[in-house]
């Protein structure tokens, strides 16, 4: 699914060069649920942006479904984001004064395979809302929904184009712990039921434990990459 080889990213801030990623090699198979943990500034968000085709690496190769996407032009990247990738953000990023179902419809406005009819958009958005259990809140505006509900709407929006990869950037960062676990259950379910590949960033260990594999980041490098089954064992051993 994802194949990353010697990926590096540098930023220039004034005279300084910031090495956000210093040569990452990572591969994620289809249907895996990978969580990425690390302190702020460790480069995990940068990796996420590159994986999400929002940014391109300074050097190295990124193969998505066997296709080299690190050198694609703007419009093609937009197409990949639309068709292959779904995003879930920490701050939900829902459009204000817009109903839940209209928020979910948003990515369907940008499909390249011909215009999706309004009625079909509505049907597909309702199906996505059903997947996150929010059919009865379809006409509510974001300010009428709880944080957990808003994040579920955002997940539905990420699912509506039926992507094969779901990228989540600290999706529980703005939620209390009970709601966090509810949301994580949804991710785990999506991975198990639909075989969706998920890459999720967090800095909480208990959230990371929902994944099948956890990757530890520090200073732009991977310091650990262990399946969670073994991690739990080592925790037990310790």
């Amino acid at each position: 699914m994802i194949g990353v080889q010697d990926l590096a990213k540098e930023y220039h801030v004034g005279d300084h060069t910031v090495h956000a990623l210093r040569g990452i090699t990572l591969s994620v198979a289809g249907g895996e649920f990978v969580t990425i943990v690390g302190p702020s500034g460790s480069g995990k968000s940068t990796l996420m942006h590159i994986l999400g085709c929002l940014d391109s690496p300074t050097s190295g190769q990124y193969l998505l479904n066997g296709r080299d996407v690190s050198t694609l032009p703007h419009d093609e990247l937009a197409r990949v984001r639309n068709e292959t990738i779904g995003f879930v953000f920490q701050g939900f990023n829902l459009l204000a004064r817009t109903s839940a179902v209209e928020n979910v419809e948003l990515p369907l406005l940008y499909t390249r395979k011909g215009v999706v009819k309004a009625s079909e958009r509505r049907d597909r958005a309702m199906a996505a809302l059903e997947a996150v259990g929010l059919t009865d809140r379809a006409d509510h505006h974001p300010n009428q929904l709880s944080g957990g509900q808003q994040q579920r709407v955002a997940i539905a929006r990420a699912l509506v184009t039926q992507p094969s990869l779901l990228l989540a950037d600290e999706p529980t960062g703005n939620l209390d712990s009970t709601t966090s676990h509810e949301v994580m259950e949804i991710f785990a379910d999506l991975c198990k039921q639909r075989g969706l590949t998920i890459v999720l960033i967090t800095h909480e260990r208990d959230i990371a434990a929902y994944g099948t594999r956890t990757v530890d980041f520090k200073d732009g490098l991977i310091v650990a990459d262990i399946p969670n089954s073994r991690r739990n064992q080592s925790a037990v051993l310790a």
Partner: protein
Amino acid sequence: MKRLLKHPMVDVAMKALSRNRLQTGLTMLGITVGVATVLAMMAVGAGAQRSIEQQVRAAGLNQITIRAGNWKPKQTESDEPIAHQAEARPSTRDPLASQAGRSLRVGDDVVKIAYHPEDDPMEKHDHPTARQRLGDLEAGLGSAATMTFADAEAIRKMPGVQYVAGGIHENIRVHAGEKRWFTRMHGTDVMMPSIKRAWTFTSGRFFTEREQNKAEQVIVLGQVVVDRLFGAGASPVGSAVLLWNQPFEVVGVVTSATWVVQPAPGDDQFDAVYMPYTTTQRLLNLSKLNDITVTSESSGDVSRLSRDITKLLRQRHGIGDKDPDDFTIITQAAKALTTGGLPPGIARAVAGNVAELEKVTLERLAVTMERASRTMTWLLAAAAAVSLLVGGIGIMNITLLSVTERTKEIGLRMACGARRKDVMRQFLFEAVVISAAGGLIGVVIGVIASFGIARSLRWATVVSPLSVLIAFGTAAAVGVFFGWYPAKRAAQLDPIVALRRE
């Protein structure tokens, strides 16, 4: 256009606008005020221009009459040297070469007799038959059979020509039952009421193009004729009258629209009857016209048009360089001069010897007035356009603000697969929708304001479709122009930076 309206970005733009109603409304207001002002100012300017034009035209200054034949009025006999016709010289051409040439050369001898008996409606005389009348050397002095309907059509196609009406004129007796009245008959064109602006129909209508095409026996009676035949106040529309023992259906009654000209027995307009010239041609078995009446679109154009008509007709009639015209062009301006306050002798001397005198005086005046009023229109419109510009800057301001405000939304849309051009289109559409909707409301308010000005200030206003188009088009263009830059900025945003923005 339909596809464009169905574009999903239009939908996105509309939704985005409806989310910020107050902001959208206020921005729209800027454009609305601009468009309404432009429209109202242009209406005021055009109204002033129109009223000047009308005054000039009511004086008949844009009217040109071309009469078949080339002769001069009886009165000029004594002051011979001034006449235009003095140029006429016997031609050296083969006498049979052209009908026109021949009749004229013969006309040379009779030029001083000149006045056709029929030109004076009050003159008592026996009626010659139609055959004798037109094209006949004896009787047709002023009515040389040289002008045809084809000539009228050719003139109609000339640039600067407003209306053209061919005419055949006869003195006839009209019978209605036992009563009869001796009057003028004009076989004319449907265009005539447009040329005679001082006409109004007390009942019925003028004959129609269809009736003209089919040469139907319909007739419009002058008020004087109606009074004599049917009694004052009667409405004869629908009844029949007899001319040349032929029944005609009365379709309308015409009278003067102004108190300046009152219908009187003996006048040429209202002591007269009108029928389609085609009917006259059919019944009298004629194919010629006595005269052609032309109006120019602009009153300042009369001299040029007369010159061009002369050239055209000479060419059409195959008149050689040295031969005189076989027609006479009379402009209202020249006529006004000769029938005005000046002693007839002096007036004729002036008109005859100073070429294009009317151009120097009345026409010049008309041109100057027209130009002045046009300048005023544009001045007003320009002042109003400034307010439209201000409205446009308002659009730019608001669109820029909304791009900044919605940076995060733009980032999200990009993450969801929006291309740069999708984002660009959305914001451009938003700007255009604001300006077009604002413009539309502005047009409505502008039109209402124009009528308001006309009523309360008694200042004539004219809202032309063109000015509506200009005002609305400018508003839409302002939207595109001022929406472009903010939309471009939105499209150039880096999605990561945009998403991080709080």
